[in-house]
């Protein structure tokens, strides 16, 4: 491909790409995002390619491996264009039928369609499925229609037109003004106004400035940045280049976790392609503006998601945060002005430039504009990535899009904001999601993890879980975080083990206050949030653990026992066969019993006991009933009529 030297040439290239494509030509797209990949999309893709060759259709049908579609629960996802017929949980064995029936004969295969669990209706098109229908996919939408490894695909959907507009029609000040007017706020956690950050950097003294993509997505249970970077890397590069132009920077970095190999691969390919096309490098599109981008891989440290720690890591040092008396926008990497924004923030920039800040501010609430991508995970029917306008209520996200809690269980809490966030109870389900609304409720937006918990989740254990995570990830530089969180973890662990004492909760509150006030960086300052929010909304659970040594959710191993109800056991023997520690005293036609001295509380018996018996129970806070006498164990079966 020859270098594109001007904006006119770019439009010509775009035209020739579009004219070489026939929108009516059948195309099979396969989601190749991480979620679908894990459920076997690679094998499906391979068999589609083989089947196309086998049926001699290589010229007539296109096959495209796209990024994440978002509906990970139902992967692997296959969509047949131009009709847009959407198949879920496709297996390699389904492929010959898909090609011969749907692609050639245009017949829909019923069994691969989505079934609405409420109406039992089969749904053919993606846009009509409730999971998608209630979303507003401004940033994420293109993921499902382009091949992330093809710059031509990105150009075909109008890619790099925002960059062309900026370079030809706008001064850096105008770009800055437009972004400021859009009220775009950082999608990575804090929600700092992006335009203000850029302005600070632009006005900071110095000729060398940096722009950086923060793709060190470390929050457990959050993977939207990964999916964007894997699925649409050019949109981030375009946003970054526009930001560099506005700030006056000529060097950019993408800091991405090495745990995301596909993201590293796709973004590296994208950079190479953009360089070949002259959309990165010297004299971009003949405008005289120079900009280069390098990929820097993170080596596995959660704290490196924090701005100053990330910048220290970029310098090739251990990623420890530093005090930020001066913003990193003014004094960042190698003490030079550095703008750091999250992946999703950068991906919003081309949209704002192309469609204008007035368009962008239509979406969202007073103080939180635009959309936000959440990863809706945990005890939820439709696990996946969802993009909604700011201001949608938690209830709508969880029930309308997420389909509610599976298995007829009761909703207990939703955790937002990752380890720095908090848990919100049922009373707050009508809360609109926005930066300030979530912070006021004791949680935060964070990068957009949304973990749904049901009645079986113990809230004390959730707090313990996050503090364990943070103890492990604390860099150790400042005492309140290093020691404070560790002590909090010790006390919480004791509580979940039934060793809690009177006064523990108060001591935890005191430690939380010190960590919050005196830690160096946001990791330590926000570390108490999971504890404080669960205490605020679920104090009764803490008290049950401490005072009654009881776990109300029947989850803390040390506080529960498994017990077989003699009145319900039918001696089917399943639990005895599956128990890994031979703790079930069984026998033919004998009521089974759990040997409490051997039981490791793995819960296998509870899971395998057939639902029609439901004989295995979890008990907590009360003694296990004594074993019944041997003679009472015999089940006298009264023939078929009694069963």
């Amino acid at each position: 491909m020859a270098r594109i030297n001007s904006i006119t040439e770019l439009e010509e290239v775009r035209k020739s790409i579009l004219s070489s494509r026939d929108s009516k030509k059948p195309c099979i797209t396969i989601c190749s995002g991480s979620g679908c990949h894990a459920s076997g999309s690679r094998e499906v893709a391979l068999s589609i390619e083989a089947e196309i060759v086998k049926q001699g259709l290589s010229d007539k049908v296109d096959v495209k491996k796209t990024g994440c579609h978002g509906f990970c629960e139902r992967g692997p996802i296959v969509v047949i264009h131009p009709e847009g017929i959407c198949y879920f949980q496709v297996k390699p064995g389904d492929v010959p039928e898909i090609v011969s029936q749907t692609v050639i004969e245009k017949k829909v295969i019923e069994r691969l369609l989505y079934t609405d669990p409420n109406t039992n209706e089969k749904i053919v098109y993606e846009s009509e499925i409730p999971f998608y229908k209630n979303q507003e996919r401004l940033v994420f939408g293109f993921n499902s229609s382009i091949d992330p490894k093809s710059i031509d695909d990105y150009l075909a959907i109008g890619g790099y037109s925002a960059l062309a507009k900026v370079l030809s029609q706008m001064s850096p000040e105008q770009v800055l003004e437009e972004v400021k007017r859009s009220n775009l706020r950082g999608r990575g956690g804090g929600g700092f106004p992006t335009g203000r950050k850029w302005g600070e950097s632009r006005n900071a003294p110095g000729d060398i400035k940096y722009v950086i993509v923060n793709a060190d997505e470390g929050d457990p249970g959050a993977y939207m940045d990964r999916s964007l970077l894997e699925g649409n890397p050019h949109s981030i590069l375009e946003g970054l280049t526009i930001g560099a132009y506005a700030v006056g920077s000529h060097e950019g970095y993408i800091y991405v976790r090495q745990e995301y190999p596909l993201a590293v691969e796709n973004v590296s390919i994208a950079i190479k392609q953009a360089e070949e096309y002259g959309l990165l490098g010297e004299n971009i599109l003949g405008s005289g503006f120079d900009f280069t981008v390098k990929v820097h891989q993170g080596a596995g440290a959660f704290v490196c998601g924090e701005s100053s720690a990330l910048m220290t890591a970029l310098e090739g040092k251990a990623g420890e945060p530093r005090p930020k008396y001066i913003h990193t926008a003014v004094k960042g990497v190698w003490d030079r002005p550095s703008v750091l924004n999250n992946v999703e923030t950068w991906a919003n920039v081309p949209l704002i430039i192309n469609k204008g800040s007035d368009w962008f501010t239509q979406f969202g609430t007073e103080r939180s504009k635009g959309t936000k991508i959440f990863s809706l995970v945990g005890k939820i029917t439709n696990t996946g990535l969802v993009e909604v306008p700011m201001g949608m209520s938690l209830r709508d996200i969880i029930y309308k899009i997420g389909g509610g809690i599976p298995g007829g269980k009761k909703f207990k809490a939703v955790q937002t904001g990752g380890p720095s966030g908090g848990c919100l109870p049922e009373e707050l389900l009508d809360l609109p999601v926005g930066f300030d609304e979530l912070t006021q409720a004791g949680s935060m937006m964070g990068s957009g993890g949304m973990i749904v918990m049901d009645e079986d989740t113990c809230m004390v254990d959730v707090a313990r879980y996050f503090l364990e995570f943070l103890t492990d990830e604390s860099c150790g530089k400042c005492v309140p975080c290093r020691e404070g969180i560790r002590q909090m973890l010790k006390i919480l662990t004791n509580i979940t083990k039934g060793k809690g004492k009177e006064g523990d909760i108060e001591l935890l509150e005191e430690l939380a206050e010190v960590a919050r006030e005196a830690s160096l960086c946001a990791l330590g300052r926000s570390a108490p949030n999971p504890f404080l929010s669960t205490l605020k909304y679920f104090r009764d659970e803490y008290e049950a653990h401490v005072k009654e040594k009881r776990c109300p959710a029947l989850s803390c191993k040390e506080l529960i026992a498994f017990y077989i109800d003699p009145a319900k056991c039918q001696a089917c023997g399943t639990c005895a066969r599956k128990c890994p520690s031979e703790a079930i005293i069984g026998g033919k036609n004998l009521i089974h019993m759990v040997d409490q001295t051997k039981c490791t509380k793995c819960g296998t018996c509870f899971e395998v006991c057939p639902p029609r018996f439901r004989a295995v129970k979890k008990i907590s806070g009360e003694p296990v009933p004594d074993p019944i006498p041997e003679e009472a164990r015999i089940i006298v079966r009264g023939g078929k009529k009694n069963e």
Partner: protein
Amino acid sequence: MDKERVDQIIDKHDCEASSLIQILLDIQSENHWLPKEALERVAERLQVPMTRVQHIATFYKAFSLVPKGRHEIHICMGTACHVRGAQRVLDAVQDLTGIKPGETDLDLKFSLETVNCLGCCALGPVMEIDGKTHGKMAPAEVANVLKNYE
């Protein structure tokens, strides 16, 4: 890992001290651990004190200073997997292999690590062995999966 290969990796990164982490990552991914000699060579060539190399090699989770087993087991402990019972899966793996997270067994068969989110939350709890994902794991199924590895 021989010295020439270490040198090649260093040269690939233009022997720049700011690329220290990237160089160590390349060595780690090829060799699966960081031998002392390799670290010394990196320190010498980049003219960075050995203390800083050690600081980085111990600070970041991606690096290992001891050899790894033939099969690397990763148990996802992300929040979504946690609420779906990842701890019980981990307990089962520990019981069966006799090693704790961060350890390698004496036969160098398995290394066990916990990770904080593999990004396939729909499949939780997730166990990954040598890059292959085993989703919706139950403690009772762990033995079945592990027996396929020699």
